[in-house]
């Protein structure tokens, strides 16, 4: 089961991104194997529906949970439809590494 974290940059030291659809990078963390994958968000420059495109793209990569500072208003209907979990983390000073540490220590 994979978790997608919206990130401001392409290292684990960067902070979590406040917006989901227009974030710079997605960090995909596999909860079972611990594998990490960082890929740039191909939809970040879309003027609208970036989040909806991003969800479909992540769903094809077997992502079940998404973490970001905030999600747009159109996201929830689609994520419910695809049975994906949203986590809103209102802590902008948190780095991706800290988020992954939280996930590891469950």
């Amino acid at each position, binding site marked *: 089961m994979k978790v997608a974290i919206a990130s401001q940059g392409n290292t684990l030291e960067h902070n979590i991104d406040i917006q989901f659809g227009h974030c710079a990078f997605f960090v995909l963390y596999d909860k079972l194997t611990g594998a990490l994958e960082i890929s740039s968000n191909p939809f970040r420059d879309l003027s609208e529906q970036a989040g909806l495109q991003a969800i479909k793209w992540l769903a094809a990569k077997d992502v079940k949970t998404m973490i970001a500072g905030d999600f747009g208003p159109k996201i929830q209907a689609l994520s*419910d*439809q695809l049975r994906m979990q*949203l986590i809103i983390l209102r*802590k902008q000073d948190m780095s991706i590494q800290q988020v992954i540490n939280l996930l590891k220590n469950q």
Partner: protein
Amino acid sequence: MPRIKTPRKLSGMPFIKGFRPYGPEIDKLATAIMLHFEEYEAFKLCDYEGHNHHDAAKLMQVSRPTFTRIYAAARNKIATAFAEGRSIEIEGGSVYFDSNWFQCIFCGSYFNQPDPELPMTHCPLCGSQEVQSIEAEELNTLPNTK
């Protein structure tokens, strides 16, 4: 290209998969009728729970005329199954479920539970068991951290 269907909101999954007729003369090879989830929901809301079309349409997040079309299709399929002695399978359709939202007291994150059949016992982020249920409307008034 036809317009894409608006997904219909369901209050929950039916706990049965379908119905089968019985009797000596039924045709076992007859194909089953596919009753969509939204048609099941429309039929249930109107004829079991007693809502009128106007209220039921709001519950399923579709327009009143669309609801009436779904409901008519449901009745037609159920009547066909009865009259022709065919089985009914409940599946398919363009639907979604309203998920419940929770807050973790330990790490302060907000999260939803997309599968309504599973209870939410711990925070998916930090694993803390101190989670509380919140109303979806509260998400629109979250404290801003900017």
